[in-house]
């Protein structure tokens, strides 16, 4: 493969804000990197850490979780739970040696098409610089992290 490297990002977009922001970005014909592949969830709170790990394991170079701004959650405070869960996940991924830029949590309200597009562009750019994730090489073969990652730990506030 001689062509230039293009990262693939899996996006979990909340149905009420970010998914609509992405719709709006399209309707407004805002041009941004086509590197994000979106999965719709009802709330960013639905994003189970195992989804993120699954995506990384299956070949994604990065994962973006996008929800409503804190205080604006359609389900009162689902995004706050996402945020807490995300911080724990981030911590674990760092221990596995995965760069922070690879998994990002962003807020975009339904009117912020342009904000979301910018975030996607920025993330794509960051991942281009980082290069492919190569989960298998990095985590599976590194020995120490594999068990932890495969076991899908419970990342919950007890």
């Amino acid at each position, binding site marked *: 493969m001689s062509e230039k490297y293009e990262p693939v990002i899996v996006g979990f977009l909340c149905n009420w804000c970010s998914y609509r922001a992405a719709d709006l970005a399209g309707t407004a014909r805002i041009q*941004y990197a*086509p590197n994000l*592949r979106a999965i719709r969830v009802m709330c960013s*709170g639905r994003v189970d850490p195992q989804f993120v790990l699954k*995506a990384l394991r299956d*070949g994604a170079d990065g994962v973006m979780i996008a929800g409503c701004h804190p205080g*604006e*959650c*359609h389900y009162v405070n689902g995004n706050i739970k996402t945020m807490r869960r995300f911080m724990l996940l981030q911590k674990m991924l760092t221990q596995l040696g995965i760069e922070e830029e690879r998994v990002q949590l962003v807020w975009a309200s339904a009117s912020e098409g342009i904000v979301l597009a910018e975030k996607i562009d920025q993330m794509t750019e960051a991942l281009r610089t980082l290069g492919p994730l190569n989960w298998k090489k990095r985590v599976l073969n590194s020995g120490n992290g594999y068990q932890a990652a495969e076991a899908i730990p419970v990342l919950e506030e007890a």
Partner: protein
Amino acid sequence: MSEKKHPDNKERVGVYVCHCGTNISKVVDVEEVARWAGEQPNVEVSRDYKFMCSSLGQELIEQDIKEKGLTRVVCASCSPHMHEKTFRTACERGGLNPFLFEMTNIREHDSWITDDKEAATIKAKSLVRGSIDRVVHHEPLDQIPVEINPNTLVVGGGIAGITSALELADAGYHVYLVEREPSIGGHMAQLDKTFPTLDCSACILTPKMVDVGQHDNITLLTWSEVEQVDGFLGNFTITVRKKARYVNEEHCTGCGICIEKCPFNVVDDIFEAGMGTRKVIYRPFPQAVPKYPVIDKENCVYFQKGKCKACEIFCPTEPNSIDFEQEDEILQIEVGNIILATGYDLFDVKRIPQYGYGKLENVFTSLEFERMVNAAGPTDGKIVLRDQETKPKSVAIVHCVGSRDENYHKYCSKVCCMYSLKFAHLVHERIPDAEIYDCYIDMRTPGKGYEEFYNRLLEEGTHFIRGKVAEITDAARIPEEEGKLIVQVEDTLIGRQRRVPVDMVILSPAMEAREGSKEVSQLFKMGCDFDGFFIERHPKLDPVATMTDGILIAGACQGPKDVPESVSQGAAAAARVAGLISRGTVMMEPVRASIDQDACSGCRICNNMCPYNAIIFHEEENVSEVITALCQGCGTCVAACPSSVITGAHFTNDQLLSQIEGILWDMRPEKVTA
């Protein structure tokens, strides 16, 4: 098109790839996507078509379900927010449960955001494959019927809210109208004339206010505010604080003797915009609805110093209507729908110091001028300077104060051109020999009879200066400027800076979102935009609905609007609500969580996760249970369950994990066998 039989397929999936005219096909190679989709596991049939949402496109799906025995359908076209319902219905007509359908967004998320055909086509394939892998795990579901409580809450008693309330009440439904001021009427009650017909604002508004006050189907709660909103479409529980009036509404006849006898006057910043005074026990204006006065506790000498009670002494009713002991009441109201018509604020002109408001006394705001020119206002309709007697011989009107300005509000406030023209006309009418200078950037008069009104003003001899006013000063340079306000502006049509000396300046400030609109939007769980205006569901096709079912918006809370537009929206919102009420029940998405009681370990982690307290814990059995009626389907508990025994219908772990796998079909490190 491609058809293939996979003998080992679990399901028989039909994939439909839409061209959307050229909207998608211009960038995405839809034929290739369809051809490729035909080769994916479980796919029975795959087609591309010009317009999938057309009746012919839908028939294609119906036909294939019937003829090819499809058990699942994927449609790759626009956003599900656009046509998911259309295709679900098509599946249903074909005899397939609508939830065995999945939609792939290759327009808004793909063809419209890039010109890179190759990348867009790969992305489309990935998204389609994600949907195919997901839809295989879909289960048939039934929509959940919800009964609609026929009562409606209307928040805000301006012209939009009044219209909504009357429309519904006249249709035979009960309405609770909550207004935070002592009277309904809103901004319209403050106006003198309404453009372009110049009919008297009070003359057309007060009959409607009276209707509201007397209507059997309307419970009017003025001097009240909504404190809490619980529940969902069909069944909301609203907590309202009814502030103490210190006047017993049951006994009070509204005779007004208490107001007459109250010895204390204070400046009325709200209704009179600071131009006039009112008593401490007051009605904002004579035609107020309801007629009962309110005691302004902060300024009441009795409340502050313990002496006076003039109102109580002179109250003629038996028993006495004045009640100094009255306390705030907290009411609970059950309604099925909510209409928000909370109106607007005027831009604070002090934010633009170069216009001199507050420093140069004869600079007025639009609302001050409205009150001044109102026959029932503080100057009995006479146009005079701050000294209350001098008639201005020259008046300048300044458009776009705080609007069309990136330093304040970017948007055009829409109504200011017209009301500025109205002001010019009123000055001409009351002071025929006055010179009037109207400084505008662009004259925006779209509306029935609006441009004609502008023409009329041109005929009346208003001096129109095309230019945004740069500053207003009293620093004179030549004798003609001495003692005047000097309006400094470029007359852009001649390309010269002009200094126009005048006696009076009227600023036309922008309409802006109500202070605290963000908090209001959070209270009602709906969105407001960057400027603080509430967001409609669709800017063109659904202007009075919001993203939240059961909550509608009307009037200037959605964006700057004049009276006719606010009235239209008020009526439109009411029609929406009436439609739902007459239907009786609505069908809700069956996206709900449920717990496998046999597998639940009773760890209770999910119990605190639920924002709706829909999960209860059974101590004896040591298991948790989701109350379906309360669950809203966010899925937070599903993600949190350490034993994965909570299922989120239509968003199950199987479905989402398969979608992740599918979406990354080309990325998996170990090549999957096709």
